[in-house]
């Protein structure tokens, strides 16, 4: 029996954490999770126009008694900062999976500033930041981070390194 991909292990960890809403701004690194969510009758997958919508959505999910996760890439982190006052102020769990850009074989220089600032900006906004670099550790980090977020009611983001996700290839 072959091992499921690390992405599907992450999806299983989300389900095991009883997450039933998944909001996302599309990202190639999250494509498998997004497809799995749409194919799963238990999961409500919500496509967003901008990342901060997902902060508000996940807070609403918690108010309504469900757990939600937000998927985005690092370029979207800057869009979220003021909205993070909602989970922080209301002591509502917040859980995000963020694919990194601008740090490993990045072709597009426009991705570098926000990618570089992502951990510091999240930390400054009160979010606990974890990072996954290897395929064999991702699911465990996601599971532990979801537990931290939902059991201790704090904001947590897991950064998926660009080396792990694979740098986007621009055909020339």
């Amino acid at each position: 029996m072959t091992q499921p991909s690390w992405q599907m292990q992450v999806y299983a960890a989300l389900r095991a954490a009883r997450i039933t809403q998944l909001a996302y701004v599309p990202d190639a690194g999250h494509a498998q999770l997004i497809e799995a969510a749409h194919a799963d009758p238990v999961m409500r997958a919500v496509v967003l126009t901008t990342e901060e919508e997902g902060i508000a959505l996940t807070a609403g999910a918690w108010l309504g008694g469900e757990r939600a996760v937000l998927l985005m890439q690092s370029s979207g982190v800057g869009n979220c900062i003021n909205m993070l006052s909602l989970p922080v102020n209301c002591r509502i769990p917040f859980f995000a999976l963020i694919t990194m850009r601008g740090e490993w074989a990045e072709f597009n220089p426009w991705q570098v500033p926000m990618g570089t600032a992502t951990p510091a900006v999240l930390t400054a906004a009160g979010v606990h930041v974890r990072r996954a670099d290897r395929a064999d550790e991702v699911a465990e980090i996601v599971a532990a981070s979801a537990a931290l977020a939902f059991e201790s009611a704090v904001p947590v983001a897991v950064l998926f390194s660009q080396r792990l996700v694979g740098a986007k290839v621009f055909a020339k």
Partner: protein
Amino acid sequence: MRNDGTLDRRAVAAALLRDPGDLLVVSGLGAPSYDAAAAGDRPLNFYLWGAMGGAAMVGLGIALAQRSRRVLVLTGDGEMLMGMGSLATIAAADAPNLAIAVLDNARYGETGSQRSHTGLTTDLAAVAAACGWSAIATARDMAEVEALRPRLRQERLFAVIRISPDELPRHLPPRDGAHLADRFRRALGVPTD
């Protein structure tokens, strides 16, 4: 384009929220939160004091989690403008139990009554329609507001209510977010994790 709203915002909120039953209410920051509180504070009102642009999406998260309950988002034109993309997100989501009512005074009332886009060129109901909301309405008198009240509790409706830009005395709801969130979940009967 001119916004010619004349309605008293407190009278509008009182009409829309009369006999709320188990209606779940999310109010946008600023005067709509004061209006909702003035209509009667209750644990199933979740007042935003910040997170501008997020009221409709908080409503969507609740609506997806509580499929058998009705959710009403009561917000202002400035708050809705900041979260305008959420009109597309919500239209594309599966949330028939969510309605939005925008108290539109065409002003940013909290910051000195500067004109907003709804007093310049933007029609939020038309924006919602273009995003895919099939039911939209605009109310300009109290009879139309009364007609909106049942619709906001039955339909997937986006409604704009033209209110007067007059500023009213503030009626401040609780502002401790953790308290508001906790009492909302308790009133809903959500088990504590």
